[in-house]
């Protein structure tokens, strides 16, 4: 009774084509945006912003990138970490070579560079599929990290290999490095994530998104109606890597403040893959739910275990945390293989009828 389309008529295709067709959805999104842009920066502590909100947002962005490739276009990739590292190092090289450059430009350029690298490693997808492609992208992961580790040019010949991200400004406001306030970093990342999410939503519901899904669902039929598999797969790799590259650059510049290849190892690729599987393949909302699940749940579990009086056994708590986390992942995959986004979908269906059973 609360959430339903009754009485909300559309009289033009333009209105019917809107992203949020229902008044309830628009109100819901407005509330979330208000929370994210006003309430959280005002109320949350620096600790919350820097250790919870920033990784959550950046992981959600990386998940968005991988979901475009794997969820929408059906190309399994384990190279997410490598592409994120590419974005981070591209941003570092650009920011140090052109110190006056606005950070927004740096981000866009490093995204573009990562997109080009992604297309290069996407070329095998034209001949191989599924697990075999996953192995090919795994090669990208290892090769790229090896490259950034071994070639000193990428780290500007720094001796330690760990370099701190310089402070850079967007529209005159410092948004990266030590001089930027945590709130400024948070808001900057939030704006980037909001805009890129909107762009992803648009792409996935229009022609390019349909050609990705067509390739995913039935590549033979896609070819028959005139979709070129080459173009569709490579645009998916390009857009996906663009997103991952920006996520990597933000991770290094806005979150950790250090540019290092080790921060983007294979574990990161797997984490992002878990996020999109748990959140929901082929959905936009799922990326946030998945990222929240993977980033927030361990923190919550850790605090809960400590709260239960396990202060003495910190090591024990972290083992328990890993076990509960694993059990929960298995549980969710059994209960809802289509991810948390699907649960939300089912919830909405129920809300339509509530309080009646049908």
């Amino acid at each position, binding site marked *: 009774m609360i959430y339903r389309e009754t009485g909300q008529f559309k009289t033009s*295709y*333009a209105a*019917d*084509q809107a992203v949020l067709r229902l008044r309830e959805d628009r109100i819901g999104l407005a509330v979330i945006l208000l929370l994210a842009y006003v309430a959280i920066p005002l109320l949350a502590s620096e600790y919350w912003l820097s250790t919870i909100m920033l990784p959550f947002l950046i992981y959600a962005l990386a998940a968005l990138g991988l979901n475009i490739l794997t969820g929408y276009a059906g190309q399994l990739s384990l190279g997410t970490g490598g592409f994120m590292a590419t974005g981070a190092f591209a941003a570092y090289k650009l920011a140090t070579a052109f110190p006056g450059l606005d950070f927004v430009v740096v981000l866009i350029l490093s995204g573009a560079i990562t997109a080009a690298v992604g297309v290069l490693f996407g070329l095998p997808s034209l001949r191989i599929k599924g697990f075999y492609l996953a192995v090919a992208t795994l090669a990208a992961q290892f090769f790229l990290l090896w490259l950034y580790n071994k070639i000193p040019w990428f780290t500007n010949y720094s001796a330690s290999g760990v370099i701190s991200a310089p402070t850079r400004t967007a529209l005159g406001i410092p948004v990266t490095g030590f001089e930027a306030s945590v709130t400024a970093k948070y808001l900057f990342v939030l704006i980037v994530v909001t805009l890129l999410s909107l*762009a*992803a939503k*648009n*792409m996935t519901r*229009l*022609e*390019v998104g*349909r*050609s990705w*899904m*067509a390739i*995913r*669902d*039935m590549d*033979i*039929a*896609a*070819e*028959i*109606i*005139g*979709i*070129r598999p080459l173009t569709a797969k490579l*645009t998916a790799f390009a*857009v996906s890597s663009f997103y991952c590259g920006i996520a990597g650059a933000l991770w290094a510049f806005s979150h950790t403040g250090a540019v290092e290849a080790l921060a983007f190892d294979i574990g990161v690729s797997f984490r992002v893959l878990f996020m999109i599987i748990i959140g929901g393949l*082929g959905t936009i909302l799922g990326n946030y739910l998945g990222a929240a699940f993977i980033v927030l749940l361990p923190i919550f579990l850790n605090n809960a275990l400590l709260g239960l009086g396990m202060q003495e056994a910190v090591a024990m708590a972290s083992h328990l945390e890993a076990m509960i986390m694993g059990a929960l992942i298995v549980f969710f995959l059994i209960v809802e293989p289509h991810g948390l986004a699907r649960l939300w979908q089912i919830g909405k269906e129920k809300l339509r009828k509530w309080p009646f059973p049908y």
Partner: protein
Amino acid sequence: MSTVEQRSAAVARRREIGEVVLAVENVELRFGGVTALADVSFDVRRGEIRAIIGPNGAGKSSMLNVINGFYQPQQGTIVWKGRRLRRMRPHFAAKSGIARTFQNIALFRGMTTLDNIMTGRILKMRASLLEQAVYFGRARREELEHRAFVEKIIDFLEIQHIRTTPVGKLPYGLQKRVELARALAMEPELLLLDEPMAGMNLEEKEDMVRFILDVNEEFGTTVILIEHDMGVVMDISDRVVVLDHGRLLADGTPDEVSRDPRVIEAYLGVVHD
């Protein structure tokens, strides 16, 4: 209305049958040692409904695959709209106006009916990736234009009620209809239908026959049809090709073909008295 009555109504509004638009000449297709098609030639005239019949394994689907470029024949040529081609390519076929449906439905199962049909318009869309990302300018204009066109097809095939249903959840008969809708969204000149009525009940079959006739008459679309239901084939097609073991057995009007003794022997069965 029975199919026979529809047929006579169709005859009354008889559409023009024009020049030869597609000719298949001496096509030979082999898979290893197996010959799927051997020296097959026939032509299709603009605006006609051309049926291909034959027992299982006769090479009917292979013929369609040669016509839209999936299979590469070892020998022979295809003349399509005056162009002689050594072989067709799927993308060129789609661009030059050949659409098809498959025997085992080839829809995009994870997408809604509307999205499936919209994919049929992809070749007509020009908006760049950037325009699509911001849903502005050409991207928005095209989306709305093509949506309006697709809605016409949805009305035409009477599938308004399943517009937003993922096609994986639809019953078989409706899936077949959505697949036809997707092919029609391409505004094809030549429509290849691979057993559009297989596995349907009588009512669904009658609907499908009505749609095929309507498409043929209203849009003037040329149709090549593979079908096992002899009643339907004899009723709606202008000319029939009969294949058997990859060879052309007979070619002619339904009447001629059904009286051909070789066809009767190989396919329709011999009456023993």
